[in-house]
Every structure is written in structure tokens, then in C-alpha cells.
């Protein structure tokens, strides 16, 4: 705990860890493909909170973590667009969004 003037960094890190694990749980357990994409967004947000906390507490003069967060937000927007386009194309071919029926790559 650095000083009494601010929230300890551990609080941010714990929130970010919990959010990341919730995202992983949703990724593994969702049947709906849209919910899988939402879980990925949750995990990206957890990573962003982590980067922002370290940027503010460890590197508060150069704030390179905030620049990284901007890039992560950019890549997340591109990922959401391409992911939802793939989802629409999948839905057109298989008429379902159930993750269990997307088994074309199964050996």
C-alpha cells in the first residue's frame, strides 16, 4: 500500500482478475455464439483495466499503458466487426448460433 491518498493498486488488479476469469468462464460455457463474442470483449476490458492501473501507478509520468490501451481498444473494435461478420456468414450457412453445431473442423 503506497500511501493513504489513493486506492491501492491491488484493488484494481483484483477487479481486473475477476473480470478476466468471468470472461473465460463465459467463453467456455456459452452455447450462443454472440455471447462468446461478448465474453471476449469482457476479457479485453479486464486487460485494459490492468494496463491502465499499471500506467497510473507505476509509470505515471510517461503513461505508456494508456497508449497501449488505445491500441487494444482499436484492435477490439476491428475484432468485433470481423467476428460478427463471420457469425452472420456462419448463421447463413448453418441457420443456428449454437456453438455445439459448429463442428466442421472436427476430425
Amino acid at each position: 500500500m503506497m500511501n493513504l491518498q489513493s486506492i491501492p493498486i491491488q484493488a484494481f488488479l483484483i477487479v481486473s482478475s475477476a473480470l478476466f476469469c468471468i470472461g473465460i468462464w463465459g467463453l467456455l460455457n456459452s452455447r450462443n455464439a454472440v455471447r462468446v463474442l461478448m465474453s471476449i470483449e469482457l476479457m479485453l476490458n479486464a486487460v485494459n483495466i490492468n494496463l491502465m492501473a499499471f500506467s497510473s501507478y507505476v509509470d505515471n509520468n510517461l503513461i505508456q499503458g494508456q497508449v497501449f490501451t488505445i491500441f487494444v481498444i482499436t484492435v477490439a473494435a476491428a475484432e468485433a466487426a470481423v467476428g460478427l461478420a463471420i457469425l452472420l456468414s456462419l448463421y447463413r450457412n448453418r441457420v443456428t448460433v449454437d456453438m455445439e453445431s459448429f463442428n466442421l473442423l472436427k476430425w
Partner: protein
Amino acid sequence: MSIAITTQIICFTVLSLVILIGALGVVLLESIVYSAFLLGGVFMSVAGLYLLLNASFVAAAQVLVYVGAVNVLIIFAIMLVNKKEDLKPINDIKSRRIISTSICLTLLSLLIRVDLTNVWSLSNPQNSIGEESTIRIGEHLFSDYLLPFEVASVLLLMAMIGAIVLARRDVMSKDISTGLPVDQELIEKSSEPLLTNKN
């Protein structure tokens, strides 16, 4: 930051509770539409955490990009593929749930242990640039992060074109302006859904 520590702690607690309960709602709720709107709430609360961390520019970017673009995109996708369907039951769902939950809890305990036991080399808060962070981000983007910045623009262009190509349905047989038949070689044709019953 000039806010009193008590106010900061109250804000942090409320925002964290909204984030965690909202995230649990996103992954646990039955209705996907409720999940999408809860996801918007989670994104807004994360922007609030960024404000607590003195990062007004990233908070604004978070609201604009996540709430304004990604969440709206997800809601549109739900609207397009929202079909009531009875999911086929999986026979070993219970063991899957147990294994995945235990993996997640193990990872969570590991991460929390690292968070709490590691000694972080925190910097002096007197060096903090505080509200000038937007200026500093601009300097970073146009000096030492110039190449990633340009590559990000190319990435966004590629993602946009890729999304259009993937989501396109079919096109008209004649070119509207010239009236000539369109080259159909590279264009996805409208067809019956393939592989529907192949399981």
C-alpha cells in the same frame, strides 16, 4: 487526483460491484438481449474506473468505441440472428461445467495471489502528470508510437473491408450504371443453406 480518498473509495466500490455483477449477468442470464445491455453498463463502469485513474481521454475513447460502436454492433447482430431455437441437450454438460468452473476458480486464485503477494515498484505520485495525460498521449502517438498508429489505421481498413466481404449476401446480376452483366466469378451467390442437417 483532487477528490477526497473517501469519495474515491466509494466510487471505486460502486463501480467494481457494477462491473463484476454486470459481467456475471452477461455470462449467466438466459436472455441474450439483457446480456447485451448489461455489457453496455459494464463498459460504462470501466470508463468510470478510467476516470478514477486520471485518464479522461481513454475514458472518452472507451465510451465512444465500446458503448457507441461495439455494443451497438452486438445488438444489431443479435437482432439479425435472433431465432428462438431449442438447443440440443449435451449429455456430459455437468462434468464440463465442473471442469471449466474449477479451471476458472484456480486461475482466479492464482491471479489474486500474484496481485496480493507481489511487491509492486510504485512510482512517486508527485511525478504524476494528471490531467495533461491527453497531451502526453498525443505526443506518444506521433513520436515513438507512430508506426503502430499507422499500422492500426491499416488494420481498421482491412477489418472494415473483410467484414463487408464476409457479411455480404448477394449482388444484382447487372451493373446499375452501365447495364452490363456483372462478373459473378468472385461473388458469393445466393444459395440454399449448406450443411444444415449434417451433424
